[in-house]
């Protein structure tokens, strides 16, 4: 297997809907942060990648056909090189809605980790701290800096990726542009919509609580 689709859009731009959509289109499985949470043994790989070490992407993506969301989106340039035949999808949404969503989900989650996590738990999250604190949001977490980081990321992707290889996509557009870009027929099922703020938090429920009695 090899990556056919690389999602370059940051988290909270409809990436879980996009993951589900890509999987329905046959690009399955599709990597996403929820996959890292399900495979904590991969966090060391992501820490090395975040620190800039040379990594073998096949260690992670061997069994995947697509990737969206963090951490993959952070490495869109490296992945575009490592998988030269893959197409790139840049998921975008209204910047202010994205900011509000980030603040209610990922940033809040990170703040709770910083406050309450044990050293071992912190180590497992180290890769995302490096990506966020030292790279994507290095200018700070005030609204202005975060919005600027969002816009900068979009500009970088558009600058770095050849237009013929890139789809700038809002999940609200549904199947049509995505299917056309990937050269696959439009399914008859509705485009998946998921990972509302409430759903985000349901993914943070520990297995001990949700597991069967």
């Amino acid at each position: 297997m090899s990556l056919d689709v690389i999602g370059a859009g940051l988290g909270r731009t409809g990436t879980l809907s996009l993951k589900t959509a890509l999987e329905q289109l046959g690009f399955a499985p599709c990597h996403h942060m929820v996959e890292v949470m399900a495979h904590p043994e991969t966090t060391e790989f992501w820490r090395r990648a975040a620190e800039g070490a040379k990594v073998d992407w096949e260690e992670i993506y061997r069994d995947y056909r697509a990737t969206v969301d963090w951490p993959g989106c952070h490495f869109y340039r490296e992945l575009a090189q490592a998988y030269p035949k893959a197409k790139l999808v840049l998921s975008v949404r209204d910047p202010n809605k994205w900011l509000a969503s980030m603040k209610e989900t990922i940033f809040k989650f990170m703040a709770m980790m910083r406050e309450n996590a044990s050293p071992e738990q912190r180590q497992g999250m180290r890769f995302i701290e490096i990506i966020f604190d030292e790279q994507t949001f290095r200018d700070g977490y005030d609204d202005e800096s975060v919005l600027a980081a969002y816009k900068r990321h979009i500009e970088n992707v558009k600058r770095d990726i050849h237009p013929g290889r890139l789809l700038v996509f809002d999940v609200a557009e549904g199947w049509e542009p995505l299917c056309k870009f990937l050269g696959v027929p439009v399914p008859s099922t509705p485009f998946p919509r998921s990972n509302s703020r409430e759903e985000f938090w349901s993914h943070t429920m520990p297995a001990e609580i949700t597991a069967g009695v």
Partner: protein
Amino acid sequence: MNLELIGAGFGRTGTMSLKLALEQLGLAPCHHMAELFSHPEQAPVWHDAAKGKPTDWRAVLKDYRAAVDWPSCHFWRELVETFPDAKVLLTERDPEAWYKSMSQTIFEIMARSDAVADDPVRGPQIRMARYIVEEKTFGGRLDREHVIAVYKAHNEAVKRAIPRGRLLIYDVGEGWGPLCKFLGIAVPEAPFPRTNTTEEFRSRMVGS
């Protein structure tokens, strides 16, 4: 925003249906333990309040127009005092049925929660809920007789303390009628929400 309705009834007395009903009637958002799932940062505030730390209730509930279920029902006296214009609603149901529901939902989750006490996001929430429900409400005794006695004493205390005109004693089985009359709001056309049955709670939280 100003709190307009205080739900004094314990959890598992139809508080989730009540929350949804109140929100449909415009008293939105309505606080409920479920709010803690998407607002885990609130847990320490409620925990500290239960430990007796002076609490600015207007600040804690500034984004809400109503509050039902635990943790807020534990602080019904404080809320009744802080929000003198808010009405008070006591959800009641048959004590035996209520106890059965409690033991199959909240008590069961709590009994299995030691394993997640260290979870950075859920640990504080579960510790807060256990402290308020197990320790402060039921004094660490979860046997049927004691729990039902506490339930009855709580309901009696609310009825004694709140003047008739300010209090509605309510069973969600009665639907929109008494609730809308009490709040002075027209009855909606939509059916009254019925949700979070023992089966729903268990499939969401307990996994069976």
